[in-house]
Every structure is written in C-alpha cells, then in structure tokens.
C-alpha cells in the first residue's frame, strides 16, 4: 500500500493545504448515502415519537429518546468508521470471525431470554444483540477469507470452504433461535461469494440444495415427525401463502398489517390511525414499523421511505463498482445485498407478500443493535468510497 505513495508525482497545488472537511474525510464521503441513512433514522425517530407516545406509561418519549440516541451514536460510529481504511479489516479477518462466533455463542450462556429465544446481552442501558453486528462482521471476515484463499484449492473446494465459513455462524444464530437473522447471514455469505466470483454453476447447485432443504424442512420433516423449525416459525413462514386460513392465528398479524397500510390510502390517517394505534398491528415499533408509516403517512410517506432505501442501495451498488480493491468490492457487495434482503423481506412482510421472519427494517425499526450495526455498515461503505476517491486522486487519508 505504502508503495503507491511513490507513484505520486507531485501533490496538486490546491490540495497542499487540506481543509477541515478534507482532513475529516468528509469531502470524499458519499453524501447521498449518508443523507439517505440519516433521513431514514430521522424519519424513524419522528414516527416513533408520534406512534408510541402511549406505549410506555409515564414516559411518552421512551422510544423516541432512545432511538434518537441510537441514531446519534450510529452517525458518530459511521463517521468514525469512514475515516478508517477498511482494508485493515481484511488483516483482522480471523480475529473478527472468532469474535463473531464467540459473541453469538456466548448468548447461549449469558443471554437475555426474550419470548423464548436468547439473542442479546443485557447491558446497563442497552440490550446488545451480537447477531446484528454479526451481519457486518461476517461480511468483513468472509470477504477477507475469500480474497485470502483465492488461490488455494479448486473452485469447488473454495466454494465449499466459503459456505462452511458462512453457515457456521448462521447455524449458531438459527439455534438461538433467530430464523430471520440467520437467513441474513446466509444471504450475506452468498453475496460475498457472488462478488468473489464463484461460478454460476455453483450457485445453481446451491440454489437447488436450498430448495430441497426448504421442501424437506417445511414439508417432509414434519410429516416424518422430525420438526426442524419451531411450530410458530413454520406457521409464520407458510401462513402468508394463504392468509385467510390463518386469519385468527399467524396470519392475523400480517392481515392487520395489510389492512393498516391499505387504510392509509394516499395521504395517510395521521393521528386518526387506528390499526397501528390500537394494537391491532403488533410490534409496531420494531418489525411492523412500515405498517405504521403506511397507515399514518399513506402512500406518500411509505413511497418516500422506499425511495430513500432505493437511493441507499443505488449508492451502495455504485460503491461496489468504485472500490479500489477486491476486498472493498466484496465487502460493499455483501453489505448492499444484505441491506436489500432485509428491506425487501421486512417491507414485503408488512405488505403481506413475504413470510413473517422477524427481520427488522434497517434504520427504521426501533432497536439499538440494529441501528448501530447498520450505521457501522454504512460507515464501512463510506470508507470504501473515500479510499476509492483518494486512490483515484493518488492520495491517502493517512
């Protein structure tokens, strides 16, 4: 890396004295990306403030205050991370991977059980869910392994190795049990492999295997009396296919969410919202916050939020192509795909076209771990962008 400094002939005159923006790396930030992320979390805070003012007796700003703090911490984290050259993470891949596996395993020992699953550590002000940060850590570590192992073994061996590396933490998360996050882990793994150049034929085989597995888990295993999924998980996964049958059970939440969004019509119901205000839609501050937006702010609000995500993803994909090295491409690709997956699955679930899997909506759903982890991921994207800008201009931040 430092070798490239010698390639630099002479600093351009206007860059001799670096401005403050330049020195903070702000000049090379991808501003649309940063603004989209900040706008999303701001909209989340605004929505929570309006929709959850009666949820916690005696403290109307409970969710608002906390989400605002998580958002601020997230922005700080994003800025800090964007100043670090992400390439260092490649060197730390083993440490990162070990930390990832350890943290999602420790939940089994010290974890705080909520609704029958152990996903998070209870900290004094905050319950920390390692699997949220794990999404980013997995991408960072796995991209490193892919780059590192690019010359070792046959293509098939490499594919199997990456799969094993990705699926191990995914399996741990699945056992917490947290089906949604483990699916994100799998998707992130596949994304890194995808940008790592794993041949299409391998993806075809993996795809076939996935389909077989889904059939086995959802159809064959229950018939043989060997349930792999918990009953509620299976019901959630399949009920969206025929919501009327489950109108009182698992389909109930989804049906209420669809009614909530539909009732928002073009401009929303504002404070006259009933579906998300009177508890018909559950988990309105987390998994179903998109239904709140749909009911309160109508098509205008919901489409605005979707547009922000589209902007965010466009910038992320752009960074994939801009990255100065393969590691950055793989990391950016992994982050972009896992964000896309989370947004599509969560919004799709709110709209009744995807199963309920407990995946939060990045930057919108209330929750410190998710907001922080997403901002850190955006920070890594920023770092990739900044490094690309600097290398194009033949300069380094440090």
């Amino acid at each position, binding site marked *: 890396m430092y070798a490239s400094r010698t390639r630099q002939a002479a600093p351009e005159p206007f860059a001799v004295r670096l401005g403050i923006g330049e020195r903070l790396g702000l000049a090379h930030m991808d501003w649309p990306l940063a603004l989209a992320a900040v706008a999303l979390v701001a909209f989340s805070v605004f929505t929570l403030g309006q929709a959850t003012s009666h949820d916690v007796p005696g403290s109307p700003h409970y969710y608002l205050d906390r989400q605002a703090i998580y958002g601020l911490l997230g922005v700080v984290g994003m800025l800090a991370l964007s100043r670090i050259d992400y390439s260092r993470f490649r060197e730390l891949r083993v440490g990162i991977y070990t930390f990832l596996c350890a943290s999602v395993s420790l939940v089994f020992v010290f974890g705080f059980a909520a609704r029958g699953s152990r996903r998070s550590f209870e900290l004094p002000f905050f319950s920390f869910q390692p699997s949220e940060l794990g999404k980013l850590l997995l991408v960072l570590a796995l991209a490193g392994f892919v780059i590192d192992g690019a010359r070792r073994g046959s293509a098939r061996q490499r594919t199997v190795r990456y799969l094993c590396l990705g699926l191990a933490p995914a399996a741990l998360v699945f056992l917490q049990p947290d089906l949604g996050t483990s699916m994100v882990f799998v998707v992130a793994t596949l994304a890194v492999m995808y940008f790592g150049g794993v041949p299409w034929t391998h993806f075809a085989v993996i795809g076939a295997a996935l389909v077989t597995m889904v059939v086995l888990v959802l159809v064959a295993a229950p018939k043989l009396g060997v349930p792999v999924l918990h009953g509620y998980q299976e019901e959630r996964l399949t009920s969206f296919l025929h919501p009327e049958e489950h109108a009182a059970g698992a389909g109930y939440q989804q049906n209420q969410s669809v009614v909530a969004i539909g009732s928002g019509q073009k401009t929303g119901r504002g404070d006259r919202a009933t*579906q998300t205000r009177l508890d018909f839609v559950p988990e309105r501050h987390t998994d179903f916050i998109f239904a709140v937006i749909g009911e309160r702010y109508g098509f205008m609000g919901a489409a605005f939020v979707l547009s922000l*995500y589209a902007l965010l993803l466009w910038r992320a994909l752009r960074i994939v192509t801009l990255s100065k090295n393969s590691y950055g491409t793989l990391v950016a690709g992994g982050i972009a795909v896992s964000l896309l997956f989370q947004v599509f699955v969560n919004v799709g679930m709110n709209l009744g076209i995807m199963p309920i899997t407990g995946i939060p909506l990045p930057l919108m759903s209330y929750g410190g771990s998710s907001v922080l982890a997403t901002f850190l991921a955006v920070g890594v994207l920023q770092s990739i962008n900044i490094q690309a800008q600097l290398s194009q201009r033949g300069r380094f931040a440090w």
Partner: protein
Amino acid sequence: MYLRSGDRPGSSPRLALRTAVLGGVAVALFAVLFFRLWDLQVLSGSQYLAEANNNRTREYKVIAPRGDILDRDGNVLVDNRTSLALQLSTQKLPADPAEQRAELAALGKLAHMSLHKVRRTIEEQEEVAAGAPVTLRKDVGYDLIYYLEENQRQFPGVTVQRVFVRAYPDGSRAAHVVGSVGEVDGEELKEARYKGLEPGDEVGKEGVEYTYDRYLRGEPGLTKIQVNALGQPTPGGQLVSQPPTPGDNLKLTIDPAVQAAGESAMASRGLPGGFITMNVDNGEILGLGSFPTFDPAVRARPMTQAQVNALYRDPVLAPLTDRATEGLYPTGSIFKIITAMAALEGGVITPSTTIVDNGELRVGDQGFHNAGEASYGALTLVPALQVSSDVFFYDLGLKMWNTGQLQQWAHKMGIGRPTGLDLPGSVEGLLPTKKWRDDLAAEGLAEGRPWSAGDNIQLATGQGDLQTNPLQMALAYATLGNGGKVVTPHVGLEVEDPAGRVLKEFQAPIRREFHIDPGSRSTILEGLHEAAQVAPGTAAGVFGGFPIPVAGKTGTAERPGHADQSWFAVLAPYPDPRIVTIVTMEEGGFGAESAAPAALQILEAYFHKQATEVSAAGGAE
C-alpha cells in the same frame, strides 16, 4: 484465476456483469414493493379503510325496557325490574378443550346447571346468533356476581349484563290477560311483525304482551365504542350513543275492582272455571279471569321441574289455559235466550204463546225431561225463563229442528265463530248444525248419525254437541242487552307514553248489527229479571236481595264424564243493561249453587265502585 488480490476490479467485465445483474434484481424487488404498495393504498385503500374502521368499533345494543301494563284506573299490573344475567362470550373461552370443559363445568356448578345443560344452552343460542354473547342464566344473585368478579381470571369470557325482567306487583292479578314475554325464536323472526329484531330480543308471547307487543317493545339503543385489539374500550372511545326508547305503556279496560272480585270469587270456591265482565255497548272487558291461575313472575325466572310440571303438564287443571276465552263447554240453560230469540223473531211463538210442560217431551222413543223431574204446567216465555223450564225450550227446539233458525240466530249472536278479541288463543268453539252433523255422518264419524230433532232439542237448552265459552256467551248476552249490536270484545284501551299522555286510543268497532224487535228483547229480559230476582226464579235465592235490578239466567250443563257444570249469565242493570257478566265453574252443580253467587260478588264490586265514584264526583261539585 478469476480474482487477484489488490486488483482494481472496477474494470473487470465479470464484476460489471455481476453488479448489473444484482442491480437488475434490486430494481425488480423495489418494483414489486412499489406496485404492491400502490395496489394496497391507492387502488384498494378505501376497502381497507372500511375494514380498519370495522375492526376498531364494537356495537353494544342497549336494551329498551318494555312499557308498563296498567289497568283502566292506572294501577300497574306489569312493570320491569332490573336483574343481572350471566353471559358468556364463547370466543374468549380457552382454546384447550380440557380447560374449556373445566371452566364450563365450574360455571355450571355456580349457576346450578349441569355441564350438559350449559353446553346445550350455548349450542342453542349459537345456532340463532353465532358470535353473540350467550345468556346462560338470568336473575343471578349478587353473591355469584361478587364471586365471579373476584375470580375473573378463572372465568375468561364471562360477563354480567344488566337486563330488564318483567315484574308483577299484584302477583297473579289478570295473569291470563297480561300474558308473558320471551326471547323471539327463529320462526318468529321470519314474521313481518318482528321485522328488524335480532335473536335474543324479548317479545310478547301471550296475552296483551303478544297483541300489543309493538307498542310495549320500544327501540333498543346503540352504543358504539372504539376498542383496541383486545376488545377493550379505549379512552374517549365512545363514538355514538343512541339511548334506547322505552316501550309505551298500555292501559287496559280491566277494572281493578271487578277483576279482583272475579278472581277472589273464583278462588274462594276452588273450582276450575272462568269469568268475564264486559261493557255491553262498546265491548270493553272489565274483568276476565280463569281458575286455577298462576303467578306470571314464576315464568320470568328459571323454573324448577315441579313448577314446569304444574304449569305445563297438568291436563286437568291446566292453569295456563284461560277458561273464559279458550274453554269449550256446553252452557246449559243460559243458552235459552238464543232459543227464545230465534223462536220469537222467527214467528214460532209470540210472548203470549202457551206451551204445556208436563215434565217430559217425547220424540219417538226418546224422552227429554226437566231437571229434577219437575213439571211446571202451562207456561208462556217469561215464566218459562223464570223457572227454566226445559220442556218449554225442548218444544221450541223440536219446532225449529229442521229450519236452521236456531243455528242462524246463535251464529248471528256470536256463538261458534271468532269474536275479534284482542288476545291470542281464543277459540271458535262449535255450533252444531244440520250440515255439520250430516257431513260427519257421511264420513261415518260421530256415531254416523245424521241430524235429528233430538240434536236441536239438546241445542235449544245448551246441551248436546254445543261447545262454547264465557266470552261467546257474553257477546250473545251483550247483543240482547244492547238491542242487536255485536261488539268487539277487547282489553286494550289506550297507549300512553311514560308521562301518561295518551298516544293512541284503540277503536273497537261494532262488528255486526241486526234488527231485534224491541218487544222480543223486553220479553226475554223480563224473563231473565224474574229468573234472577223474583221468586220462584232460579236465582232469586241469590239475587233476590240485590238492590240493583238485574236480568240473569242460571245454567246447569251436563258434561259427559263430569259432574254438572254451573253457569250464570247476568245483564245489569235491568232494563237497560250496561254490563254483562258470565261465570262458569266446572263441576259446580246448579247454576244458582256456585256460578250465580260468584257473579253476585262481581256485580256488588262493580256497583259499589260506581256508587263511590258517583258520590265522589257529587261531593266534589
């Protein structure tokens, strides 16, 4: 090698392709989301808005109290008391069958119902109104309510509802007239008169509760509240509140003094029977009762098996049967006024025609005797009525046996046909005619015997196949008393609002009118007056000392399988009667023995009240 570390891969065509593919997938996924959002919010938004609004509102019906039923003086015969009903929302029962069974069993134990009965009650009510709360028991005690409140967790879905229950301050007073209420059943809901009602609503089932249901019923109110997902009301969530409109009060023609006297007269003798007192000019019924009677309040609560048996399963005493309007009896001699009317009007006899009563009338090999083997010698109509000579009327029956005159007059005066009474359940009865018996004979029924002189001879004295009741006889006597007007007997006087303002007066038009020769009328009334109050009149021993002149007739009816049935019919005052009273008592013997003294009690009460009202009015002047 497809990727080399440290490369700038942006230029790699492989990466460009893969990024482009991913970009395409992203565009497709976002397009799906946008289209779905557009579909939900813009294309079908109004439908979902309606669904959301339906979701958050619960409508509660507020039951309207039924109107009071009053006698003609405004005394309350029926009003309401509030009571607590035990209700169960079946959706909130535990889903687990064992837990559900345990709750229902525990609930049944508290409500003194078997598990089987609880389940059956639920099933029955779910059949008519699925989803509505099931009323397990009405009129539960406060101890049970407190217990359920303290142990609410054990009884999910159980609520207590305040309901109105009919109350009868005077016990069994006019029980057959006021009738009863009950939940509207599936068949009734199809009828036009119950349009707009819902299962579980209470309607009149018998008596004036049935006839005047639409005035008494009122309009239920509606409370619409906003609820959350758990069905709990939300603060400030009352959306619309439409108070119930109570039913209007119904004032009856029943005179409390007459009714009380009639009921106590019947009860004091303890014989099954009935009485009616009616205004002869307008058909207002002042008193109407049947013995044995019952306490209607018993039927407003859950009954014990013994109570059910006594009310519904006793074919002999049959307390629910109103013998005055639903009875079917021969009448004995009180029928003779109709025979006399037919004979006089038909020119068979004149008031001065003499018939010799030697104690027996022989037709072929059949002999028809006077009661008690009496013979009265040569008689005209007035003394024949006075002493109640059967032979005299046998002779008239024989003279008219093939003319149909007797049947024609009986029919005109209201025997064996609907009366127009405003109470459900009154019967037509049977007026035997030549055609009726000939038709039966052709079918081989009723001994296969065609109409004979004997049939008409029997009818002339109110015997044989005749089946009628005090109501129809009251109508016939009223028609004689008022000179040919057949009135509509009725108990409904007017509808009042709760403040006592009259909203509607019921019209009871004259049903038919025909000419009666004044001479015939006065001759018959004279005969009745002498029978009632001039020795040796058959009731002179009872009414002889009564200060008001009256025209009355005893009857002693022979019923196969029973001892003689006692009848008395009286028009008062004589010669221009205002009221008619008919009393009958099964197995009461001679008319003068039991029915006439009961009728005297009723008339005493009526005229005593008239006198006090007149003197009160006079004193006020």
